[in-house]
């Protein structure tokens, strides 16, 4: 009896908070028919927003993957001063408000920021342009690969790596032939999380982008802009595209977890 009560509470909570709201938006997006839905997501502004979101993710995710693996190696395989600090700094983007992230970036890379004037004089506009949006996305999605790879590296230990080194492998060879194959599922899981975060970032990108429709508007910004313009139907349609991407993420996570186990 108690078992059913607990099950009912748990599933009821999930339904009220997650399933029914998301389901309702999907229903609303299609209630005027599929043609309306496609019209809403193929407007020039929507297509540009989707394109920009993909470009940003295509730059930010590989950067954070390479960095994440390096950083995890540094954290696990080396003892150095400031070890604990690096560890906490890596976690910081998880806990920090995205609006704060955006403001911090404006204060360095903006027109009145530390390097902004110099960058603009040299023809590089960061804030209100693509580079700033990429940096903001990199910031918020930075911890995921590190966090997934660190425990795997700890678990595999470095005996095999040492054996390879003893047998004359260069550190590059050791990395490609021993370390990377051993951590591949951790890296893959981290990449999935990074991608999801990169596609969905809103607050930080909102601050640094200037939200210029058709120029610096990503998919999430497009959802907000359509909603504020009382085009709720368009906002629902764009949301469904983002929700589909989220479902793909969940699917990938589930498959990778199974592969790992």
């Amino acid at each position, binding site marked *: 009896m108690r078992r059913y009560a607990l099950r009912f509470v748990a599933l009821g909570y999930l339904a009220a908070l997650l399933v029914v*709201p998301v389901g309702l938006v999907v229903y609303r997006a299609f209630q005027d028919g599929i043609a309306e839905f496609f019209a809403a997501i193929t407007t020039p502004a929507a297509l540009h927003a989707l394109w920009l979101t993909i470009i940003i993710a295509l730059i930010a995710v590989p950067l954070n993957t390479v960095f994440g693996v*390096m950083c995890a190696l540094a954290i696990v395989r080396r003892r150095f001063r400031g070890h604990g600090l690096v560890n906490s700094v890596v976690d910081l983007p998880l806990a920090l*408000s995205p609006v704060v992230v955006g*403001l911090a970036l404006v204060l360095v890379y903006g027109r009145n920021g530390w390097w902004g004037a110099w960058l603009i004089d040299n023809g590089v506009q960061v804030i209100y342009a693509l580079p700033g949006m990429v940096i903001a996305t990199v910031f918020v999605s930075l911890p995921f690969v590190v966090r997934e790879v660190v425990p795997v590296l700890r678990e595999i230990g*470095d005996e095999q790596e040492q054996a390879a080194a003893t047998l004359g492998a260069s550190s590059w060879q050791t990395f490609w032939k021993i370390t990377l194959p051993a951590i591949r599922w951790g890296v893959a899981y981290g990449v999935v999380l990074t991608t999801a975060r990169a596609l969905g970032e809103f607050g930080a990108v909102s601050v640094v982008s200037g939200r210029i429709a058709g120029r610096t508007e990503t998919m999430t910004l497009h959802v907000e802009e359509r909603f504020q313009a009382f085009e709720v139907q368009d906002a629902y349609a764009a949301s469904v595209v983002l929700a589909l991407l989220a479902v793909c993420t969940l699917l990938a996570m589930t498959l990778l977890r199974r592969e790992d186990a």
Partner: protein
Amino acid sequence: MSSVAVPAPRRRREAPLALGVSTAYLSVIVLIPLAALTLRSLEGGVSAFWDAVTDPQAVAALKLTFAISLVVVLINAVAGTVIAWVLVRDSFGGKSLVNALIDLPFALPTIVAGLTLLALYGPKSPIGVNVAYTTAALVLALLFVTLPFVVRTVQPVLLELDRDMEEAAQSLGATSFQTFRRVIFPNLFPAILSGTALGFARALGEFGSVVLISGNQPFKTEVASVYIFGQIESDNVTGAAAVSVVLLVASLGVLLAIGGVRRWATRHDQ
């Protein structure tokens, strides 16, 4: 600092490139911008910083943020533990689907989360529940985004928990409530605490999911991150930076506390 007392084998200077690149990358992306933020907030001196932080609207936003975040993570500490329990100990059709669903708030963009909640619990609610532009809406939005934290920290601990202890307690005549309180709960507590703390940090800074549903009325439903956003828009950079530093310090504090809880939990295990 190091928690492992294994005698370190003679190490080659491993991964020198990795350390250098990591430090440079972290500096350019994270550390230097946060330093700029902190310095900017103190540009007018400590008194200007204090004035900015004690601005009545800022105080109201910060108070609301901390209070709501606390309420939300307490609710999710209970709900998250129940959900983790059901996912580990119960069995029913579609359980793996429910399990995958827990991560939806991580995967779904926050602005979409806010929009979906507004669709069901807003002015055009098909079930006639309208909480839009109230603190209840804030609570809903933050419950949504912080849902996975406790579930995902408690679940692995519950999976590994030795059932012998529970059976021993029960064979000695403990009721199931006593077994939960005396045997299971103490084992789960560090995980519940660290999940709750992570959720709290997340709730403090949340922006995307609350921006549409809260109405952002100063002194009523305006949370700290929305306040900061407003100050940036109206060119009060010092005010925005000062409140940002408060959030930054709070986040750092929570992260350090979680590190402390984890160290305490490992000691507890031994």
